[in-house]
């Protein structure tokens, strides 16, 4: 029996928006990892969950056929490798983050849904409950960035490294370093296992912070009274 309502609902997306998303490019930071001061770094369970959640979000935003921003022609459930391109530098944390992300984007479809028929007529269930294998290409710059305390060093770009180093000759840097001397010396009891006296300064602001607070945004019980 023909009904009016389904037809009206089918027209609704077109009436609301005439925008068609042709494609999307995403640049993504890795999930939570262990601190750089205790190498080698690795993606933590929290980090894995973060990129998985992000992948789920983007699936809802760009892949679901009913999504307003559905990318025209893209597969919603089973990945079509020619439609997607994932890449990360040669770095365990970044490669694993990318992999976790793809699993949020294209989760396992179940062994039966992805089953294939062999020539002899038998059915081959997709292994691992239909876990979708998605290659992560490598980017030539930034290798090992998550193990490196100085990111610029991993770009292999001479002038960029020189440029970053120029910062250490600037008034801005030297003033901040002097002003915060007392602060970093005060942190000594809790960072001196990893940072020598000469390293306890603004020069190592990021790394000493990430050493003390390896999980961003969570509160830790005090390591010691200073």
């Amino acid at each position, binding site marked *: 029996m023909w009904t009016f309502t389904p037809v009206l609902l089918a027209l609704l997306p077109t009436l609301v928006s005439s925008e068609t998303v042709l494609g999307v490019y*995403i640049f993504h930071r890795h999930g*939570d990892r262990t601190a750089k001061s205790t190498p080698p770094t690795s993606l933590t369970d929290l980090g894995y969950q973060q990129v998985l959640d992000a992948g789920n979000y983007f699936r809802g935003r760009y892949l679901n056929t009913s999504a307003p921003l559905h990318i025209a022609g893209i597969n919603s459930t089973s990945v079509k490798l020619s439609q*997607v391109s994932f890449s990360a530098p040669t770095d365990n944390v970044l*490669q694993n983050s990318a992999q976790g992300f793809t699993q949020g984007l294209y989760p396992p479809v179940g062994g039966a849904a992805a089953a294939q028929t062999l020539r002899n007529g038998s059915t081959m269930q997709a292994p691992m409950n239909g876990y979708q294998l998605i290659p992560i290409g490598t980017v030539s710059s*930034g290798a090992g960035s998550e193990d490196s305390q100085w990111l610029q060093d*991993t770009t292999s*770009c001479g002038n960029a490294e*020189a440029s970053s180093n120029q910062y250490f000759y600037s008034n801005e840097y030297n003033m901040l370093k002097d002003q915060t001397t007392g602060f970093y010396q005060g942190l000594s009891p809790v960072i001196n296992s990893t940072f020598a006296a000469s390293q306890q300064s603004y020069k190592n602001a990021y790394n000493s912070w990430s050493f003390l607070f390896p999980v961003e945004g969570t509160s830790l019980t005090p390591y010691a009274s200073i």
Partner: protein
Amino acid sequence: MAHPPSSTSGPKLGVQFGAYGTFQSYFGLAGLSELSGDPGVMFQQIPDYASAAAWELYTNSSSNTSTTTVDPSQVFVRFLFHNGTTTSDADLVPYPLFGSNNVDMSWNDFVSGSNAFSVGTTEKWCQVCGNSTGSCAEYAGSANGGPPPRASNKSGSGISNAVAGVIGAMVTLGVIFLVEALVLLVGGLRLVRKRKGAGQMTNGAVAADGVKA
């Protein structure tokens, strides 16, 4: 002109993972760190774990995009970012690029804005970086051998503008893939392999040499 896109042509979704430094380079170069108020402050800080930046390529054209070529003049780019893990409760937010007031930017404006700092070929990357060894060795003889970096202006304000462009080298590969990927998505454009001494460009296309992926 170009081949009409079909549902099987080219990647429609490109995702690259990287470190916070690349985000910060892009924020600076694209004018995001200069935004007023909280956004500007956010774009001056280290982005949290699992932060995401997205460039959405879209058209308002009513033509059937799976069977016809999309006119580049009807294509737009929108930049969005979320600090930390993006979820439905913590959505992507659009921000204007290159000092514009509009989060919706025409494809042509996006390309010209990006070209101000993007590096489109391995040769240019070698030149900007001043590298002359390894994969840059083949370009070293042609006056791209890498003069010493220019000294920063000792104006006391930190990194001078003269070398600021060099920082862009850090984000070059990200931007190469970005523009390459977006160019491939637009049906009316086609990537042309740049040959030495005979650069060719199709209408509005960005020429890109084979960059190692």
